[in-house]
Structure formats: C-alpha cells, structure tokens
C-alpha cells in the first residue's frame, strides 16, 4: 500500500493547551519528488513538519507516520535524522565562527581513537560541497559566506547524513533572486539522484517551477492536494484553498470619517543590512489620510515590518533614498526621537521583545515614550504619571488590580493595551500598528478593534499591518499589498476579497 510513497502521514492531530493546531492532517509524498506545502501564516505547516521530524515526540500527537513502508515513532530530531529525514529551518542554524567542515560534521564528527580525523572530514566536505555545486575551501568560516551559500552548506550537511527526505522551510525567503534560482536548480538535481524534498513555500511561482505535487493546509487541516502538471500550477485554485474560510462578524461596525492626506511616502528604498543586494523596500509609495485605517497585507518576510520600521526612524536595514511628507511638508526622520517629534507612533509586532520592558510597571510603561509630559519643574511628577496611567486604564479598559503592578503580570491583550496607552500618550497623528492582535484571544481582539476605530474617529491616520486577511478586510478602509519588498497593489477594502489580496501577495504584479 505504500507503493511509490516515501512518506505517509495519516490522521495527524496535535493539540496545544486550548488550541487544536492540527486535526486529521494527511500527507502523502511520492518517492523522488518535490512536494510543496502551502498555507497561510499559522495554518499549521511548521507544526506538521515538527511532528514529522520528532521535535514533538511520538506520543504527543495522534496519528501515524509511515516512512519507507515502516511505521515510525521518533522521540527526537536525532532519531528522525538517523532514518534519513532532515529539516532545514528558515533561520539557518550553523555556528558562524566555525568552518564549513566543522559545521557539517557538528555532532557527527569522524573520530578515531578519541581524536577527530580532520583530513577525512575535509575530504568528505569537499565531496559534499561539489555535490551541491559550491566550489569553496572547506576551511572557510561560515560567517564569510553569503546567505545563499550558507543554505547550500546546510544542504551539504543534510547530504552528509544520507538524507532521503529533505524538508525545506521557506528556503528562499531570505535569498535574493539569483540565489533562489540556484537553490531551486539544486532541488531538481537532488530529485534526479532520488532524494525527495518537501518545500514549504508561499511563492506560487516557485511552486510552479519545481514541484510535482501541492498540498494546501488551512486552519490545521488538509484542504486540497493535487499534482502539478508539467510545471503549471493553477494559482487561483491554490489561493482559494489557502484562504477558503468566510469572514465572520468579528469586527465592530464603523463609518469612517476620512480627511486630508496626513502621511505620504514616496520612492522609499531600503537594503537588507545582512544580505547585500537584497532590497527590503523597493520604491515603496503610499499615503494615509486622517481618520483612515490603511491595511498592509503581505506574507511573512514580505517586508511589511521592515517598511514600517524604516519609516519609524530608520531602525532597520540600510536606507537607500525616499521621502516622507507629513501634512504635505517633507520631513527628515533619522531616529526614533525624530519620528516621535513628527507625531509618529509605532506599536511593534513583537510585544515582549520590542514593545515592553517587562521589568516595568504599568504606569512607568505608559509614560515611557513621553517623559517630558509628566515633568514638574524638571523632575518627573509621580502624581501626573499615575494620573496618566489611570486615564488610559479607564479609557482602554485595561484589566489590572492597580497601575503600579508589573506589566509581566498582565495577559497578552492587556499588555497590548498598555503598549497602546504608551503610544497614545505621545499624542501621535500617525499610528502604525504592526500585528496589534497577534497572540490575543478573540474577546480582547474585539476591544482592540474598537480602540482602533476610536483613534481613527479622533482623526488619526492609522496603518494596520496584519497577517490575517479577514482582519484587514474587516478593519481597513483601504489596503496595500506587499510582495518581496514591493507594493504590488492598492485597493479599497470594499472591492477586496481574500482571493484578490492573496494573489497580489504571492505574485509580482
């Protein structure tokens, strides 16, 4: 029954406390093929791969994994690697200060009488590098290689473990175009040698170029799967399968009162600081009006956050030109201080890493971006601080025993409200919200949505960056789509639907 299949995952169900991440997922991969898996952010692709590679050990999920005709019960990554399944993560996992040889044999050294046989390792490394088409000295230090080359070394490392099934998680997301092309060619070459690959990817053009079969996962379920014929893929069909669900009435009613253009960005260019030649923003051009909520749609790594952070004081990448106009006047924003002075506010996507000092109390956090406002005769005035914190606690309906408690004691939704209070306290004209509802439960989301509407009604220009298309369609008045650092479309929310957006988010227009 396992004819032609190297891998069958049957009825995989994986639950985390309170969340069903995967339910009854089935995945069948043919020998010596390239199998693409696609789906929205958070659809369960990575969870499925973690189940397969033993990151989530046997017993922590339900269902069966049959690999080369035998039922498998991996307890950890080591066991799955021994069986010939190797996963290459989105973030590379090599040690930058060590050589290619050392990295390839890390944890797997060729040892003779207690000592490493370097000659043997170097010889094998050279062979492996040839196999992936990389002509470099095995003694090269990893950090001196480009990201594309590093990825090839990762694959060489996988080959050193006699890989039979290679899993690549968004392999081209951090590569420039020529490196991506190289990688795809290599995958086709490996296929000829009988190595099977699973590729997780958002990029439909890449899927069309190399894959033999596509499986679409949505909300933790397999929703569709079909063979790709002769390098052709029906993109519309995949997009429809990816977004599928209906928009429920999870968004408050709102009639926008839209005014003049407040923010106008033109020809904004930013280069990746780590990958020369890769542009994080390519000639980005957009505007936001007072009272308007403008959505930015794009898949992970498309450059939404990068665009926002480079606008907010150039805190990311290398600036390569572009202008910002606020209320029609060109402004120079070279630091976060400049941005705040120009009435910009940015609520970052990662609350705990970028938004909060978890050691601080609610009141200290609330005033932290505008300390001048609570000063009396040059000194911070604790009464004013408390009054400000109380004001936002009440108006944002933050649930806490008092404003003196630490922000680390709050739930995600309430923490987000504190971050919002902090930026509202700077009295911005333009508020950039990057994934404001990530990791927040449904009830709290609704409250955040209402707050966003209130802010828009006060005449603030709001930029809403989100990975959830229903959220953008439910909240935004106008939506821009981003793909690979480029703005690929602009359309009024009432004319948009998930299919149209997904298409613009995955294909260069």
């Amino acid at each position: 029954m396992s004819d032609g299949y190297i891998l069958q995952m049957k009825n995989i169900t994986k639950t985390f406390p309170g969340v069903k991440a995967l339910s009854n997922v089935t995945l069948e991969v043919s020998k010596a093929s390239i199998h693409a898996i696609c789906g929205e952010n958070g659809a369960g692709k990575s969870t499925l791969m973690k189940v397969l590679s033993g990151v989530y050990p046997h017993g922590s999920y339900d269902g069966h994994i049959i690999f080369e005709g035998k039922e498998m019960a991996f307890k950890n990554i080591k066991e799955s690697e021994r069986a010939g399944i190797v996963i290459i993560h989105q973030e590379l996992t090599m040690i930058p200060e060590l050589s290619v040889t050392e990295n390839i044999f890390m944890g797997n050294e060729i040892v003779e009488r207690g000592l490493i046989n370097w000659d043997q390792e170097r010889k094998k490394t050279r062979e492996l590098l040839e196999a992936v088409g990389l002509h470099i000295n095995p003694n090269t230090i990893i950090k001196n290689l480009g990201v594309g080359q590093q990825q090839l070394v990762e694959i060489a490392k996988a080959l050193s473990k006699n890989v039979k099934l290679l899993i690549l998680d968004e392999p081209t997301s951090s590569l420039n175009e020529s490196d991506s092309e190289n990688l795809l060619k290599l995958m086709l070459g490996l296929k000829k040698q009988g190595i099977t690959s699973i590729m997780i990817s958002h990029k439909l053009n890449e899927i069309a170029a190399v894959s033999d079969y596509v499986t679409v996962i949505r909300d933790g379920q397999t929703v569709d799967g079909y063979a790709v014929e002769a390098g052709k893929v029906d993109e519309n069909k995949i997009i429809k399968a990816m977004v599928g669900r209906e928009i429920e009435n999870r968004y408050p009613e709102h009639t926008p009162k839209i005014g003049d253009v407040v923010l106008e960005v033109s020809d904004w260019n930013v280069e990746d600081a780590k990958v020369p030649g890769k542009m994080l923003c390519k000639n980005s051009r957009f505007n936001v009006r007072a009272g308007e909520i403008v959505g930015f749609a794009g898949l992970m790594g498309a450059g939404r956050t990068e665009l926002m952070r480079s606008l907010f004081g150039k805190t990311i990448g290398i600036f390569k030109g572009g202008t910002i106009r606020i209320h029609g006047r060109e402004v120079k924003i070279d630091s976060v201080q400049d941005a705040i002075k120009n009435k910009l506010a940015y609520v970052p996507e990662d609350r705990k890493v970028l938004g909060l000092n978890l050691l601080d109390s609610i009141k200290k956090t609330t005033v932290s971006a505008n300390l001048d406002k609570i000063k009396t005769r040059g000194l911070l005035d604790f009464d004013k601080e408390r009054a400000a914190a109380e004001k936002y606690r009440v108006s944002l309906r933050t649930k806490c025993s008092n404003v003196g408690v630490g922000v680390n004691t709050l739930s995600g939704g309430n923490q987000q409200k504190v971050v919002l209070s902090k930026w509202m306290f700077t009295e911005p004209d333009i508020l950039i919200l990057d994934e404001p509802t990530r990791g927040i439960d449904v009830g709290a989301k609704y409250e955040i949505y209402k707050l966003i509407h209130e802010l828009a009604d006060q005449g603030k220009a709001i930029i809403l960056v989100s990975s959830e298309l229903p959220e953008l369609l439910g909240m935004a008045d106008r939506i821009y789509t981003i793909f690979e650092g480029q703005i690929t479309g602009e359309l009024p929310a009432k004319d948009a639907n998930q299919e149209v957006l997904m298409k613009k988010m995955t294909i260069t227009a």
Partner: protein
Amino acid sequence: MKYIKKVLGEDLRQYTMVVALVALIIVFNIASGEKMVTSSNFQNLISGNAYVLVLALGMLMVIVIGQIDLSVGSVAGFASMVMAITARQFNLPWYIAILVALAIGMLAGAWQGFFLSRLGIPGFITTLGGMMIFRGGVIWISNSISVPVPSELKWFGAGYLPEWGPAFTGMNNSTLLLGVLAIAVYIIIQLKKYARSGDITGEKEEFWPVAVRIVLVTVVIGYMTWIFGSGRPGTSFPIPGLILVILIILYHLITERTSFGRHVYAVGGNKSAAELSGVNVKRTYFLTMLNMSILAAVAGILFVGRSTAAGPADGTSWEMDAIASVFIGGAAVSGGVGTVIATMVGGLVMAVLNNGLMLMGVGADKTQVIKGFVLLAAVAFDVYNKKNRR
C-alpha cells in the same frame, strides 16, 4: 502583617537587607563588648567607607544598564594622584587641584564611554583596559612614591562640622541642626504626600500609617544624630558622610525623578524596546560611564583626604567592593533592576562587616573570606526569593 505593610509599603522584600544590617550591628555590638555602637566608631565607619559608597552610587547605574566598570579603583587612584601632584609640584591652590581631579575623572569616563557607546565594545573589556591603563598611569607619574596632599584637602576626607552655640545640648550643634532639619524635611514631605493622596484615585489614605512612619523616622534620625553628635568635642557627623548624604539624595533624584534615570532603567530592562520608545541608547551608555568615572574621582578625593597622601596603590580592588555593594543591594546581573537606597544598604552591610570583624580582632584574611560568603548568600537569597514569587 497587614499593618506593617500599610506603614512600609507593599513590597516588604526590600527591607530584608535593612533587617540584616540592623541585626549585624546588634550582633557585632554584643560580640565586641559594645565597641560597635559608639560615637567614635560610627564616625570612623562612615568616613572610612564613604568612598566605597560613592563608587557604589555610580556602579549601580552602570550595572543597571547591564554593564560593569572594573576601572573605578584605578581611575580614583589616578585622579587623586594627579590632584596631589598638581597641588604639590605645581603649587596650585587646593580647589584647582580638586577641579583637576574631577576633570581627569570626566576625561577617563568620556574615554570609556566612547568605546562602549560608539564602538560597542562591552564595558567589561573597555574598563579592564582602563583598569590597567590608569593603574599603570598612577605608578608612572608618581614613580611609585606617595605624594602628600595640602591640609585643606584633609577636610574632605576626615573633617568635621564646626562647633558653635550653647554647650547645654551636650552635643555638636551642627550635627544637631542637621538632624533636626532632616526630620523636619521628612515630616513636611510625608504630610504633603498625605494631603495629595486620593487626588487621583479618589481614595484618601488612612492617616495613622503616616504618623507611624513619621515617629519611626524621627526616632531613627534622632538616635543617629545623638550618636554622631555626642562624640568627643570637636567631632561631629563627618564631612565625607555629609558629602555622601548629599550625593545619595542627588542620585536618588536622578534615578527616580529624571528622564535620564528612566532611560537608564529602560536600556537595562529591554534595549530594543527602549530604542523603539525614543531612548537614545548610545547617549545613555555614554553618560552612565562618564558619571561613573567622575564619581570615582570624587571617591579618590575623599580617600586621599583621609589618608593625607596619594599613594601609588590607592584604589586597588575598590571596584570589587563597589560591585559587591550593588549586588548585595539586590541589583540584577542582567540589568534593569536596582535602587540607590538598596545599594547604600548593601554597601553599609559590607562596611559594618569590615568594621565589626576588625573590632573583634578578626584578621583581614578571614574578613575577606566572610565577605565573600556574605555576597554569595545575599545574592543566592535574592535569586531564591525571585524564583519562588513566580
């Protein structure tokens, strides 16, 4: 317990070290045959340890931003040696010499701040270099010979407040005046705070905890005034102690009530979040290191004033005492946590240990061992406490 919390505030943990300090004083007083709690010993304790506490003030801020400064002892030694040479060999007045010492501190701080903030070299490395450079510098410019300082400078290290007024008080009237002033200021602050309470939350505080606080503080300050003021004639609360108290108030205000202070904690707590909130991280690093070295120069001046000469080995391993004080005071190695007051309590614990063991005739070797254990115990206790609270 509920009543104690009302008087002292919700977080009682911060008083653990205060309790330990008081316990140490009592135990040593008994063990040494009541030699601990005397006017002369307390005066001695303060003027002999003021320089370490001054260093600890700066070190606290350095540790809060998540760095360390190993060079403070060498900078203190270098600044005071230059001061002594300025006064002696160039025959310049004492106040010029002091300004020169402070300027040296400022330059040393700017130097180290530059490497940390502009080049991103960790403070540990930057100041390890500084430690060697300035220690070598002291020995170099002094030719390994002690240089006496002018007598005016002795006032800063070992001076006392003037005697005046009636004798019937039975004590030094300057000290008495200071004590009375301190109590009065405390009462006014407490009453003002009480008057304002409830303006925001609408819930007026009860009055009795305020009254209890006032009585408690009055008794403590009053007793201290008596101890320090009732020594042999001509002695009082020591000048280095007064300088220290002024600096404590100043730095308490800086850390708690200024933007710069908030930025220090923000950078130490979460550098990325601080940066995205508009904090100039580089500037905060720079100023904190600059400030540390200026305070090191102050510490050097106090020490040299007391020992009457600048020696080539002055300042050796002071950084360790300062760092220990900060950690005994509950600061976190990872940064972001620590207060001026707690650091001062931590420093006093070290000082009382030194002093008490000496009174009991315990040698410097064993004292060192005991101090090491106390540091470990204090930090272990703190870590254990934090873990259990989660």
